[in-house]
């Protein structure tokens, strides 16, 4: 068989005026078959043919002259644009809807993909050669807990591993900052070892960064490098910033430089205020003289996260192997200090930009959101396509007439093109505005952790892609009808052409509606799942009373309080706050429910001493159990006075019910038992005084963790949260607590104040925001699908007016006519639902990690979405169906 040139090219050639069309098509076909195809192969021959077709049409479009006036093809002119504009204004509502919805599609897709790019994909600004960078974590295979590294270990690991070209350590910390003449504030900073800046290839824009010597030497000076944002904001662009002093956690530091403006930290969401040398780590934490808090020596503080530059040519696997071997050597050489790494396994995570925990939390959300906006974009494109096809159908008579009067094919072609562009271009502009708006909403929506850098910029490439997709859709479907009616000028075939082109166009329109319905079903299904997830999570009972409890953070540590000083401060504060009017109960907690961090410890199982069990832990005062209403079911709570450490040196603890059952079989058997506990690897002998209820303290999706409450004085940290139960307004209470703190030490600031109820609600903010955002998207999709379907059904019904008239004349009932119309639309509805279910099931895997309390393929949800879709189908076709029954048979027949 003779090979045929590509259909696209042949379709384009049909735009040529008829006397030339055959010759040009013939020539190109002949050359394609005889010369180009054998010489260049299929792909290049096809593209040659299409290119020639486009250029040929273009030649004719520009051609004035020729033998026959009626076949003259004129240049596209302002007239076509005017016609197109007038045509669209005849249906202003539908045209505006198409513009607005296409803009919504382009805007939401742009902003969601920009955010995804900013969070997950983009290079970290300012960092050089980041493809060779990697973070290393040493994690315990059983507990999953990660161990930071000490400075001496860091150096040894780097030296012993040839695959590691460079190694550095860093840790992030929130410090209290005060600068003379400015109000005190807290700020995120990174404590970094020598070589950190060199590895990243960052430089100072003013002054200098600190050297390796300064970063690591024991007697290094207290230096700080501030971020560009900190310099511009807090320091108000002070031109003499270098050499200025500031206090960090109460200690004097000297600013030596300002970081280059684009570098904000090694995570994309970072927005650090300053960098300080590792040499200051111990001082900043007020850890001088405390065992395990030195910088140097084998007992040095294990504080650093590890970042490496992998040697050229080395693989991740090699690197992990070498680090594992190096760590094994370190454990053998210094068993006293490195015992914690005995079982640790190094994981090299290629690339920087997002922490593993952020990635696991944000990636699924963004993936689902991206999937939803892609569907929205497709629905809006389908909607524009539908509108343009409908426009062309309505204009068919006009087209036939103009062709009969000698209007050139290219004129009509350009009119269609103009129409498509008139819809698409404003949509692109509006889309850009929507993208900027949605971008702002997303960054402030609670989807992201607070305190991250808010990138309000949208990505130009993403926008260009979404805009191009919108314009391409508009042009394709604007021009398709022109090709469908290519023969409409042959008047002997006018009637046949009308029927043929209307059939193919209706099929096209119907197909578009089916796609819209299918995507809407998938969207509605997703939204129902997200809404159920949100409502399921909100109704989870965490097991404690959060209403009327205010959580107030306070930390005497940065002011140098240590050991018993901290205990005394806390005891004094609890005492003072307890005597404030209207306070019903007050407790102190180290790691409160739904707080920033959780704490774990290990317990030796009494029945099998070889087994260590991991449990959550909190250090609390005895009033804790009353303050959050969980009480003590067996035994008693510890009291503040009764030193919680008994005569035998044992620490009083209260077990959660599940932990008591796990360790002793039944809660009542746990009371007055002793337990071997390890906190941070340090042994502690515990004595169980009571058992309390289980609570969910962080993740509402999980079952309660077994938890051990340890008497407050032994707390490993100075950071404290007061839990105050009161009926008084939060702000009034906060003011009184503030003065209570000041009475004890006026240098200690009050940290954040929040209602416990809000903290619990915050845990589901992502789900609720997500459900709301996607509900909005689904509502748009559903509206568009309805409008699209309405136009198809209404048009098809209008085409059959004559048939309905005859049917009514020969005695058909109006119910019968209604049924005819409805049957037509329900076919589309059913196809849409069928396809939609398939799309939904294919995409449900994405939702599996997000839904809670409902399966991602939940049949009830699917049935609900399908019912909603069919209701929209019926609603969209009801008006056309009713108008069909009002056809007057006499009028219809007379017009024939």
């Amino acid at each position, binding site marked *: 068989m*003779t090979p*045929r040139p590509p259909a696209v090219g042949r379709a384009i050639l049909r735009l*040529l005026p008829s006397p*030339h069309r*055959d*010759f*040009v*098509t*013939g*020539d*190109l*076909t*002949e*050359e394609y*078959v*005889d*010369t180009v195809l054998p010489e260049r192969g299929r792909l290049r021959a096809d593209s040659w043919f299409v290119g*020639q077709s486009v*250029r*040929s*049409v*273009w*030649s*004719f479009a*520009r*051609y004035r*002259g*020729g*033998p026959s006036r009626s076949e003259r093809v004129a240049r596209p002119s302002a007239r076509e644009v005017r016609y197109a504009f007038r045509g669209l204004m005849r249906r202003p509502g539908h045209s505006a809807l198409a513009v607005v919805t296409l803009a919504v599609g382009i805007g939401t897709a742009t902003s969601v993909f920009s955010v995804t790019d900013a969070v997950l994909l983009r290079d970290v600004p300012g960092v050089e050669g980041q493809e060779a960078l990697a973070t290393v974590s040493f994690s315990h295979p059983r507990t999953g807990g990660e161990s930071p590294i000490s400075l001496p270990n860091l150096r040894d690991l780097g030296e012993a591993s040839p695959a590691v070209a460079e190694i550095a350590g860093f840790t992030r910390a929130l410090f209290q900052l005060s600068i003379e003449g400015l109000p005190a504030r807290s700020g995120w900073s990174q404590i970094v070892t020598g070589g950190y800046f060199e590895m990243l290839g960052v430089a100072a824009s003013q002054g200098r960064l600190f050297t390796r010597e300064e970063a690591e030497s024991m007697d290094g000076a207290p230096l700080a490098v501030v971020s560009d944002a900190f310099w511009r904001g807090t320091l108000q662009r002070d031109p003499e910033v270098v050499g200025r002093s500031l206090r960090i956690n109460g200690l004097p530091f000297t600013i030596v430089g300002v970081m280059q403006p684009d570098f904000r930290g090694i995570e994309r969401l970072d927005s650090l205020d300053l960098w300080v040398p590792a040499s200051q780590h111990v001082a900043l934490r007020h850890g001088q003289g405390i065992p395990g808090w030195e910088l140097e020596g084998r007992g040095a503080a294990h504080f650093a996260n590890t970042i490496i530059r992998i040697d050229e040519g080395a693989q991740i696997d090699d690197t992990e192997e070498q680090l594992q071997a190096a760590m094994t050597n370190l454990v053998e050489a210094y068993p006293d200090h490195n015992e914690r790494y005995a079982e640790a396994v190094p994981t090299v995570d290629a690339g920087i930009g997002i922490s593993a925990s952020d990635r696991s939390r944000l990636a699924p959300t963004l993936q689902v959101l991206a999937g939803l906006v892609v569907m929205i974009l497709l629905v809006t494109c389908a909607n524009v396509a539908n509108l343009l096809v409908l426009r062309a159908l309505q204009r068919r008579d006009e087209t036939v007439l103009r062709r009969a009067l000698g209007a050139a094919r290219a004129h009509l072609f350009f009119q269609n093109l103009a129409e498509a562009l008139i819809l698409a271009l404003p949509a692109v502009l509006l889309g850009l505005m929507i993208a900027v708006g949605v971008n702002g909403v997303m960054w402030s929506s609670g989807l992201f952790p607070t305190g991250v850098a808010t990138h309000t910029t949208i990505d130009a490439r993403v926008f260009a892609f979404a805009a191009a997709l919108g314009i391409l859709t508009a042009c394709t479907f604007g021009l398709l009808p022109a090709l469908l009616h290519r023969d409409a000028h042959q008047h002997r075939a006018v009637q046949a052409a009308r029927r043929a082109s209307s059939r193919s166009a209706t099929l096209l329109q119907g197909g578009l509606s089916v796609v819209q319905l299918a995507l809407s079903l998938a969207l509605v299904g997703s939204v129902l799942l997200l809404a159920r997830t949100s409502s399921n999570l909100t109704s989870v009972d965490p097991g404690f009373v959060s209403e009327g409890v205010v959580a107030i953070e306070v930390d005497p540590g940065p002011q140098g309080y240590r050991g018993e000083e901290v205990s005394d401060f806390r005891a004094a504060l609890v005492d003072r706050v307890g005597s404030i009017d209207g306070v019903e109960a007050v407790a102190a907690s180290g790691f409160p429910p739904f707080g920033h961090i959780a704490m774990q410890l290990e317990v030796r199982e009494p029945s099998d001493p070889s087994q260590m069990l991991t449990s959550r832990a909190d250090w609390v005062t005895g009033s804790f159990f009353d303050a959050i209403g969980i009480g003590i079911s067996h035994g008693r709570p510890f009291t503040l006075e009764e030193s919680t450490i008994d005569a035998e040196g044992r620490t009083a603890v209260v077990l959660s019910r599940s932990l008591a059952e796990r360790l002793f079989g039944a809660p009542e058997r746990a009371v007055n038992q002793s337990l071997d506990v390890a906190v941070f690897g340090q042994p502690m002998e515990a004595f169980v005084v009571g058992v309390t209820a289980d609570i969910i303290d962080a993740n509402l999706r999980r079952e309660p963790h077994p938890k051990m409450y340890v008497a407050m004085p032994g707390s490993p940290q100075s950071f404290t949260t007061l839990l105050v139960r009161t009926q008084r307004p939060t702000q009034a209470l906060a003011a009184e607590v503030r003065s209570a703190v000041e009475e004890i030490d006026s240098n200690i600031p009050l940290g954040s104040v929040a209602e416990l109820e809000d903290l619990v609600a915050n845990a589901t903010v992502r789900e609720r925001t997500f459900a709301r955002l996607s509900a909005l998207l689904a509502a748009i999709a559903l509206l568009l699908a309805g409008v699209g379907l309405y136009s198809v059904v209404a048009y098809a019904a209008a085409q059959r007016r004559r048939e309905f008239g005859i049917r009514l004349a020969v005695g058909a009932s109006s119910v019968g006519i209604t049924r005819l119309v409805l049957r037509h639309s329900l076919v589309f509805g059913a196809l849409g639902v069928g396809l939609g279910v398939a799309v939904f099931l294919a995409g449900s895997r994405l939702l599996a990690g997000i839904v809670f309390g409902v399966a991602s393929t939940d049949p009830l949800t699917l049935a609900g979405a399908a019912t909603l879709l069919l209701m929209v189908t019926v609603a969209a076709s009801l008006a056309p169906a009713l108008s069909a029954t009002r056809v007057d048979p006499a009028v219809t027949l007379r017009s024939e």
Partner: protein
Amino acid sequence: MTTRGLGEFEQLLLFAVLRLGNDAYGVRIRQEITNRAGKDVSAGAVYTGLDRLQSRGFVSSEEAESAPSRGGRRRKYYRLEPAGARALESTYSKVRSMAEGTLDELRAVAAEGKAGGLS
């Protein structure tokens, strides 16, 4: 019919029709221009150009039988008319007499421009 001269593309078209003689139809004309003049033109441009020349009486055309690889579509053969030959001769001889003896210098100046552009 008209005294307007011929453009470059029109000259190429007329020479191609002349060279091809009895074989002067779309595909050959396009290939002749591409191969000899190194100018890649579209099939559409060949027809609009010839159409314009025909309306000025410079060429005439005749429709003839098809080849299987054209899918049954006819070919259109063109022939150079005396008016066309006169117009082409007049235009070309003007160019030639102006060009006479300057070709070496022309190339030298063009090469200079190139070298200058690089420095």
